[in-house]
């Protein structure tokens, strides 16, 4: 297995704002609702939320973006995994107000029009899910895994995908899907 980068773990982590909070931009926030401007899947969106609202609930309950799933709301299952500024985060442990000005990507934003992302195609072909509830989070982690360079071997894939629980236990098929995309990308690179 590839040595870990120092300070990184195999699971998604909550987003840590680069500034201390959004407070510098907004003044004091809350407890009343505040406006947050953020980009969701390439579209600039404004959402009005109390500061206690998680990114997950802002997406699901207020913006109609329901692919991030609520499995535990405690950062334990990974079903809510999205990308914020290209990095995978647990949206249930991320406050929406901390995403001011950031780019959020969910599974709805993976496909290029009607062309599915190779990872989406691979998940479908390899039957890398059953009920589908953890799938958006698995996909966002799997796509990030490729970019993070953690697809060297099966053990590495398994370790770095272990922050996303799948109760249907499609794990071997998920690894197969990641391998397929990795190998497809490698073959693409050689051409």
């Amino acid at each position, binding site marked *: 297995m590839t040595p870990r980068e120092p300070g990184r773990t195999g699971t998604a982590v909550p987003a840590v704002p680069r500034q201390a909070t959004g407070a510098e931009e907004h003044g004091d926030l809350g407890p009343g609702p505040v406006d947050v401007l953020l980009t969701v899947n390439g579209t600039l969106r404004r959402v009005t939320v109390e500061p206690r609202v998680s990114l997950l*609930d802002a997406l699901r*309950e207020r913006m109609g973006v329901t*692919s991030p799933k609520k499995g535990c709301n405690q950062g334990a299952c990974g079903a809510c995994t999205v990308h914020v500024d290209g990095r995978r985060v647990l949206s249930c442990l991320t406050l929406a107000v901390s995403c001011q000005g950031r780019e959020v990507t*969910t599974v709805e934003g993976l496909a290029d029009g009607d062309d*599915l992302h190779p990872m*989406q195609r691979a998940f479908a072909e390899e039957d890398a*899910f*059953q009920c589908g509830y953890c799938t958006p989070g698995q996909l966002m982690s799997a796509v990030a895994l490729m970019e993070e360079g953690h697809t060297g071997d099966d053990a590495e894939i398994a370790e770095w995908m*272990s922050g996303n629980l799948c109760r249907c236990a499609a794990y071997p098929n998920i690894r197969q899907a990641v391998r397929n995309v990795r190998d497809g990308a490698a073959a693409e690179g050689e051409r």
Partner: protein
Amino acid sequence: MTIPAQIGRGMDRVDAHAKVTGAARYSAEHRPPGAVHAVLVGARIPRGRITGIDTSAALAAEGVIAVLSHLNLPKVAQTPHLIPSLAGTTAHGQSFFPMQDDRIHYAGQPVAVVVADTLERAEYAAGLVRVSYAEEPWVTTIAQGRGDTYEPERIFGGFVPGRIERGDVEAGLARADVRIETTHHFAANHHNPIEPSATTAVWEDSKLTLYDATQGPTATRLTVAQLLGIPPSDVRVVSEFVGGSFGSKAMIWAHPTLAAMAAQHVRAPVTLALDRAQTFTNTGHREEQEQTITLGATRDGELTAIRYAKTSPTSPFDDWAEPSMGPVNRLYACPAFEGVHHLFKAATMTPTFMRAPGEGTGAFVIETAMDELAHELGMDPIELRLRNHADLDPESGRPWSSKGLRECYALGAELFGWADRDPAPVTGAAREGHWVLGTGMASAIYPVYGVVNPQRARARVYADGRAVIETGCSDFGTGAGTVLRQVAADALGMDAEAVTAHYGDTELPTTVAAVGSAGAGAISAAAHTAATALRERLVGQAVTDPGSPLHGADPAAVRVSGGRMVRPDTGAGETYGEMLGRHMTFDAEALGEWAPPGGDEYGMATFGAQFAEVAVDPDLGLVRVRRMLGVFAPGRVLNHKTARSQLMGGMLWGLGQALLEATHMEPDQGRWANPSLGEYLIPVNADAPDVRVEMIEVEDRAVNPLGVKGVGEIGQVGMAAAIANAIFHATGRRFRDLPITIEAVMAPA
């Protein structure tokens, strides 16, 4: 034109695109205009009485619309009575409905429902509801309740007798050369599908629509209608996408009805989603249990008697126990058997079905005991099982409708390399650094439950060459929607890609809840019957239509392929669409109803053989499962890809059962100590080795029209035993309690 056989094809899931693009909407994700959120408040004590509820702070909080409790919630129209959902009628998960009076029977029992305009506000206000209690004495664990057991007449919602006896056990044990006597403890388990149960309730005048996460839309409809006292026809249940269940959504619990009541009270659509912790006290669980077994056998390995007993807690309302004696009674030919369940009343909700309900624990007991017996006799474990192979169903004495277990052993042994196994390396001879290695196997059995109600589907062919198959079942990850297409396509003589499946809605023809591995058998029977009726009607029309090239042909001889009817004698033919279009009709449809024949000529069950290789680090207590193999004989396989996934998932559930899964009761508090996915351990990707699944297709003419025996549970049944037997093979130590924890393996022998 020839097309591949539609049944069996490993086609991709029909809902794969929706699931990988985020288009799939689950029950809590339906947002009707004006929808508000309801949040449950659970009891903090395990038993006693509510002495007061102060809702003033909650009601004063911003956005709060209502707080419901036993003080203002309407009474249910009828006290619920537990009936397993397989019966096809109401499916109350327990004979109890909360918030009807001030009594508390178990920790977490709903005592209030808070409704607010946003989820955060409802959750915050739920924390402001002040409930005071007068606590009363209670027991929750076997250690506390052991002295107060009784023998129930029937268990499992009345489905199964509490005691089964045949032959003379005393005499059998007396003539045994060898006796194996073991006691096993099983921790309580919770299903933990990644989607917590949720319901969105919408009233339009007197009509109620529920978007509900359920294994049986019709079960939800009938159950909620009965509790509300309204006609079932006024309740529509939609459950197109369900995020896993494993039994937690097999019975209908209080929350769909509470959501409907809350929606009625606030006159707005309501979403009530359980949070993770609430799923531990609102949707049932596999009960803590203790099982003992005594095996008697001759020196040749012939079983002479089996004595078995189980003790477990049940609710104040129901005599529930998983029927764990099934595999103990039915796996092997043994002339004498005695099995008995002991229950004690505890401060718990009624336990419920959880994947491989009963078989998972019972098989662990008989299959580890058989491994001990094999070791004691110095006999190969497969050889011992073959010597006791049950040619007839030991329980009923009837022939099996189909079996295939010998073939499973043979193929499994070959693929796993069983012949190369050192039969007794229990000295830890096989080493790899710190790791000691071992292999083990076990048999698996799961009953084929006969459904009792008619199963219906509707098939329709359009003149454009496409078809639709409709039935009311839900697909909670089983692949039901996908195999519906395949079964209908096969009967219609079409390509499955040309068939659309509609399901997950009570407005469609009725099928039973998909439970007990019976779902595929039921819906395939319905779809096959409907599509066959439609094909026969269309062929019948063609051969009597003077304008058809098939006019005058023998309808029985007509072949249909790719939607084109052909008479073999002349080769002439036309498509369904051409014929329909000629008559200015745009579609044709037929309702199919399969009436289960009942009958009791056969013993019916699915069988398998399961193998595992483990590596154990005795110093650190680590157990790593390196290889898993399962060979199963599930009758007809409708889709090899989705069936394999279900079997694989079941096997990994067996890994979780063996090594990880436990809900711990806090004995001084009477409530679950670890109700979260951080503390209730389930397998993660890194725990799961590659899994090999093989299927032996056995023909079964008795179970249902297509001979489908189901794949939902059998994968789990023998897996934990195979792993425990492999650990013994590696270490020479027997771990009889589940899960086999790191602490247990580390502890000095």
